C-alpha cells in the first residue's frame, strides 16, 4: 500500500511539475516575443528618422540595410529599405530575442510602406508612412 501511495503521489507531483514547466516555457516565449517586437519597433522608428540619399535602393527588389541595434533583453533589431519598383518603398524591420547561447527565443518582422521626400540640405531622405502601410510579416 505504501508503494502504491508513493507511486500515486509521484505521478501527481511529476504531472504538476510538467505543467509548471510548460507554463514557464510559454511565459518565456511570450516575454521574448514582446522584447523582439520592441526591438523591431525601435529599429523601425530609427529608420523613419531618415537615411542618406545614396542609401536609397533603386532597382525593384533591391534592399539596403539601415539600422542595426541592440536593446535590453538582450534583443537585436534591424531595419532595411526595399524598392518595390515605384514611388512606394517598404521599410522592413525585424527583432529577435536571443538566449545566452545565441538561439532565437522569439522573433518579429514588421513592414511599413513609405513614400520618400526629396533629400534635405544634408542629403538625408525622410520617409513618410503610406496609408494602411503597416503590417506584421509572417
Amino acid at each position, binding site marked *: *500500500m505504501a508503494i502504491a*501511495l508513493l507511486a*500515486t*503521489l509521484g505521478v*501527481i*507531483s511529476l*504531472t*504538476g511539475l510538467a*505543467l509548471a514547466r*510548460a*507554463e514557464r516555457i*510559454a511565459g518565456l516565449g*511570450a516575454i521574448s516575443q514582446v522584447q523582439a517586437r520592441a526591438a523591431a519597433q525601435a529599429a523601425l522608428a530609427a529608420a523613419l528618422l531618415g537615411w542618406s540619399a545614396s542609401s536609397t535602393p533603386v532597382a*525593384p*527588389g533591391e534592399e539596403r540595410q539601415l539600422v542595426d541595434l541592440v536593446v535590453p533583453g538582450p534583443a537585436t533589431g534591424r531595419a532595411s529599405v526595399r524598392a*518595390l*519598383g*515605384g*514611388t*512606394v518603398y*517598404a521599410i522592413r524591420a525585424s527583432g529577435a530575442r536571443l538566449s545566452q547561447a545565441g538561439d532565437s527565443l522569439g522573433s518579429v518582422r514588421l513592414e511599413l*510602406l513609405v*513614400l520618400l521626400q526629396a533629400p534635405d540640405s544634408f542629403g538625408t531622405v525622410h520617409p513618410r508612412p*503610406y*496609408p*494602411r*502601410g*503597416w*503590417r*506584421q*510579416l*509572417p
Partner: protein
Amino acid sequence: MPLTRRGITLAELLAALTLTGWLGTLTTRLLGAAAFQLRDRSERVSAEHNLRIAAGALRSALEPLGQDSLSGADLLTSSPPGFTARAVRAAGTLCAASPGALVVRAAPQWWSASRDPVAGRDSLLVGRLDVPGWRSFPLQTAPLSALCPDGSAAWNLSVTADSAALIGIGPGSPLRLFEGVEIRLYTSSPDQWTGLRLLATTQAIQPFAGPMQSSGLSLSYERRDGSPAGSPDEVAGVSFRLGMLTERAGGVGLIRGPVPRADSMSGFVVLQNHP
C-alpha cells in the same frame, strides 16, 4: 504450566483496526487533496492559455486595420460583443497592370500569403502611386500563372477594372488580398464561446476560445483622443475585456474538478493603420 500466546487479544485487534482506518483515511484525504489541486491548477492553466489565445487573436485581427479616403475603413461594423472587418490573407507587389488584369510578383521575397487566393471570396486592395490611397477590386477568377515584363514568375489576378479605375496603379503598386471576417461572442448551449466566421462563405462560426463568462467578450471602440467612437471609421483603438471559465476538458487527472472558475484579461489594441 507456562502461559503461551496464541492469536491476539480483542484490545490489540481494536487498536490495529483503528490505526489502519486512521492511516487509510489520512492517505485517502492526502491523495484526494493532491489530485484535486492538480485538477484545479491544470484547469486554470488551460483557461489562462485560452485567454492568451483569445487576446492574441483579437490583437492580430484588430491591429492591422486602417482606412484611407479611397477604399474606406477596414473595420466594417463594431459592437461590444464582436466586429466585422477586412482580414488580409496575402500581400505582394504589382509588376504590371492592364484593364481586367493585375500581374503580381510571385517570388517568395515578393509574395507572402497565409493561403492561395479564392475567387468570389477574396478582394484586392491596390495602392496608387500618384496619390496615397488604395483601390478595392473583387477577385473575379482563380489566379493564373504569368510572367512579369522582366521575365520573373507572377500571378495574373483577374479583376473588373477599366483604365479609369487603374489610374495611378502600375508596377510597384502594393497589393493586399483580403476577405471579410466576423469575430464575436456566440452561444453554443450551454456555454458561450468566441469564434470567427468568414463572411463570404456559408460556413458556421468556428470557436477559437472558451468557454466564456456571460458577456465574456466586451469591446469598446475609441477615437484617438480616447472618447467613444461613433462609427467604425473613427476607431483608432479598441479596449477589450475577456472573461474565461475553466472547463473539465482543459484539465488533467481523474478526480472531478471544482465548479467552473472565472479568470479575466483586459487590454488595448491600437489600430496601426488608422491615419
